[in-house]
């Protein structure tokens, strides 16, 4: 069912009235929600305006959430921004998930910690524009000047004290001309933004209502579980499905490419059918192993690059005249994302159209890829987004959507593709394995030159040449080497920096110790050098004052240098996704084993839209970082992953989670990212605290392996 609206590029709003007494400032409605609306509708067409607002005659406001929600709280915090500028009471707001709609929304992506930052202005514009139209309609009705009207919580008041509610004037407002320029609220006057607001899906989550992709059902659909090559580099030779077809509920077995899909009337029948398949595999490309990757990457670390990412000053000369050179190598394994909801997607492909429903962080790109695969136009393809049971970057990829498209097309049926945990962990898309070599030239007890070489699998750049310490050294060289591999990779929460930050900040701690400097003061001095170098024209991407601000806040809150007896502190700081973070880890020794107790974390992310969720997200990033630094390990032997479920891959659990203290720098600046930035620095905070406690330095994940303990 399509809406009775016509699209006119020259008009900002297009009005299409239906029976009823309300108005919608907005775009497509999902079919199920259209019936609920049953009100007059207005279509907004403006670049950059990407939320939509519906107000019924009683003043109930429906705000569409455009971006995929996977735990970042965008489904709550982004509508909060719209509601703020619209000036309504949050209790009168209903939030609904929008489908993929590139005509009317921008960047429907959950990635890069950018949802709020990119949409901030568009969300405010959506709210403020709608508010102005409501005011204009009321002013016209009263015969007064719009400028004399004020609003508060969905009520318009004029100079004489007359009042009208948004619900009462909504239908008239829809017919008003679209204001070109609207004024935003002064952040000091925010009533909703900055106030802790409960997750809009709370009740559904705590009572087990269908929300996630895995929960989606369609009458007549079959469940599909696929068998894929067990090792990277293998191809399907032949298979025997005799036993599979004997399984109760199995309806069909379909070969697609080098994979075999088992179609059944239940998930369990499909899983049993998959397990009963007998397949022979042959080598297609080389079967790679971690051991061989390690050798090749270590060799890269000693290989000068012909195209350095950054080359400031004269690094060669600075190292040649150094009193001492400190050189350390850091190593990271591959890492699966392990979203708790395994990959899954619903797809129904017919000759005319293709419909998809499920958890994706990147629906627009996914639709493009599906269109190419199916030879269809994008207009023939719809993607509805369910709540995402964890993304961490895995669902920025679209492999599982292509699979269900192919299976549904071949089967000519609606299909729900489900990955078992084993499928999910072994079928690819990992954080790349990487290694770094850091070299620091020391002259007169000062760090004077910096040389970083990075390498990893399938990545164009393993260093960050515009981030700190770029700018802090007059002599600085950053190089990167790519190791090509047939093991597929994907962004993983805070790509590259999730390990680079640990390595860099652990290295700085060691350098500070070596030259007898306090680790915090050592960083502060480097940032002051960056400030001085910036004045000389050196370019970099971070703000010196904000960097120093979080360092000082973390040090102050943690009582840096004045820890209780028996408590050992480690410091780390990192800027990523436009957000500044500094952390202090506190470790104690129990039976001579270091135990992590607490992380104190200072953050500058601009305005904090929803404090309760911001704390949750930041704390989650910290503990996620702790878990993968402590336990995360993933190796390959002859192309085959060595872990396939949670009995072999260790994720952090409750008793291993440290206490976390989150402190935000008070700010009225536009919001920046929060989904990722607290993760990168945490490994170094822990490692530096462990070094303070035991003297032992850690140079790779997982720490438990380096420490030779079980960890806790």
């Amino acid at each position, binding site marked *: 069912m399509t809406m009775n609206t016509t699209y006119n590029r020259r008009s900002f709003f297009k009005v299409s009235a239906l029976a009823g007494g309300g108005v919608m400032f907005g775009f497509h409605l999902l079919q199920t929600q259209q019936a609920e609306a049953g009100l007059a509708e207005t279509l907004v067409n403006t670049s950059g305006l990407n939320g939509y607002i519906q107000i019924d005659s009683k003043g109930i406001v429906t705000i569409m959430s455009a971006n995929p929600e996977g735990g970042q709280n965008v489904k709550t915090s982004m509508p909060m921004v719209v509601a703020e500028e619209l000036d309504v009471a949050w209790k009168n707001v209903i939030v609904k998930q929008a489908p993929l709609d590139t005509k009317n929304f921008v960047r429907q992506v959950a990635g890069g910690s950018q949802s709020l930052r990119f949409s901030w202005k568009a969300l405010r514009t959506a709210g403020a524009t709608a508010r102005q139209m409501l005011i204009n309609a009321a002013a016209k009705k009263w015969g007064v000047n719009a400028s004399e009207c004020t609003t508060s919580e969905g009520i318009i008041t004029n100079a004489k004290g007359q009042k009208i509610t948004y619900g009462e004037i909504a239908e008239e407002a829809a017919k008003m001309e679209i204001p070109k320029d609207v004024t935003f609220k002064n952040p000091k006057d925010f009533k909703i933004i900055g106030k802790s607001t409960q997750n809009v899906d709370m009740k559904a989550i705590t009572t087990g209502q269908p929300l996630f992709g895995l929960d989606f059902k369609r009458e007549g659909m079959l469940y599909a579980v696929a068998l894929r090559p067990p090792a990277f580099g293998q191809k399907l030779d032949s298979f025997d499905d005799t036993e599979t077809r004997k399984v109760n509920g199995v309806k069909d077995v379909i070969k697609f490419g080098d994979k075999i899909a088992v179609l059944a009337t239940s998930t369990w029948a499909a899983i049993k059918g998959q397990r009963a398949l007998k397949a022979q595999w042959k080598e297609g490309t080389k079967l790679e192993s971690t051991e061989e990757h390690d050798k090749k990457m270590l060799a890269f670390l000693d290989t000068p690059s012909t195209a350095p990412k950054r080359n400031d000053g004269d690094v060669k000369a600075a190292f040649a005249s150094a009193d001492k050179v400190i050189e350390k190598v850091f190593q990271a394994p591959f890492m699966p994302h392990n979203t708790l909801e395994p990959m899954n997607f619903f797809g129904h492909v017919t000759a005319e159209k293709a419909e998809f429903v499920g958890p994706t962080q990147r629906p627009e790109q996914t639709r493009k890829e599906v269109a190419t695969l199916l030879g269809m136009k994008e207009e023939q393809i719809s993607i509805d987004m369910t709540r995402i049971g964890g993304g961490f970057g895995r669902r920025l990829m679209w492999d599982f959507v292509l699979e269900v498209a192919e299976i549904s097309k071949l089967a000519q049926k609606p299909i729900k593709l489900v990955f078992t945990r084993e499928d999910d962990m072994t079928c690819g898309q990992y954080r790349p394995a990487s290694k770094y070599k850091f070299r620091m030239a020391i002259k007169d007890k000062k760090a004077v030159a910096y040389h970083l070489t990075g390498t990893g699998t399938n990545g164009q750049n393993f260093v960050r040449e515009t981030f700190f310490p770029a700018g802090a050294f007059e002599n600085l060289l950053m190089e990167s080497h790519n190791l090509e591999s047939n093991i597929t990779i994907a962004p993983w929460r805070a790509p590259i920096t999730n390990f680079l930050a640990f390595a860099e900040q652990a290295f700085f701690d060691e350098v500070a110790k070596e030259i007898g400097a306090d680790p915090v003061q050592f960083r502060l001095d480097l940032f002051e050098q960056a400030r001085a170098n910036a004045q000389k024209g050196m370019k970099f991407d971070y703000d010196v004052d904000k960097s120093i601000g979080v360092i000082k806040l973390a040090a102050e809150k943690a009582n840096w240098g004045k820890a209780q007896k028996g408590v050992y502190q480690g410091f780390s700081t990192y800027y990523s996704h436009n957000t500044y973070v500094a952390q202090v880890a506190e470790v104690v020794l129990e039976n001579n084993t270091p135990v992590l107790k607490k992380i104190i974390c200072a953050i500058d992310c601009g305005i904090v839209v929803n404090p309760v969720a911001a704390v949750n997200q930041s704390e989650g990033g910290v503990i996620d970082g702790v878990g993968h630094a402590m336990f995360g390990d993933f190796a390959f032997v002859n192309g085959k992953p060595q872990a396939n479920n949670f009995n072999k891959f260790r994720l952090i659990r*409750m008793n291993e989670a440290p206490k976390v203290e989150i402190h935000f720098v008070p700010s009225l600046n536009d919001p920046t990212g929060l989904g990722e930035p607290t993760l990168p620095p945490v490994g170094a905070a822990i490692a530096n605290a462990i070094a303070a406690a035991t003297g032992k330095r850690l140079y790779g994940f997982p720490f438990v392996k380096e420490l030779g303990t079980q960890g806790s």
Partner: protein
Amino acid sequence: MPTYKLTVNKKKYKVEVDADTPLLWVLRDSLDLVGTKYGCGIAQCGACTVHLDGKAVRSCVLPVAAVEGKEITTIEGLSEKGNHPLQEAWATVDVPQCGYCQAGQIMSAAALLASNPNPTEEEIMTAMQGNICRCATYNKIKEAIQIAATQK
């Protein structure tokens, strides 16, 4: 296929499934009770936790043949109006991030509080050790359980 008579959330159901079908898939695929989640299939993550005669069990490894005649409670049946003290505490603390594991977390916590109304922090951690939260909301989960315990 054999038929099994199940009592789930005080309602009686008849399902026709293979004897080895894990309760998890009977709940999700046959009974449309999708609040109980699939996470690992090998009783390692706790996303599929339900109550069997009041005790927390992992439904992903529990064959349907073993649960006939027992009282099964899922997240959908934990309370009539979604107002179990834990469900309310979860909202107070604003526990979830992605939310996928939370039904299993709440069911594990509910079984704990039913047998031990005032658990220590240690006891909470022991009882919740089998439940993974990939978003790492652990400290909030602990806090919510402590709040619910004081309100019972």
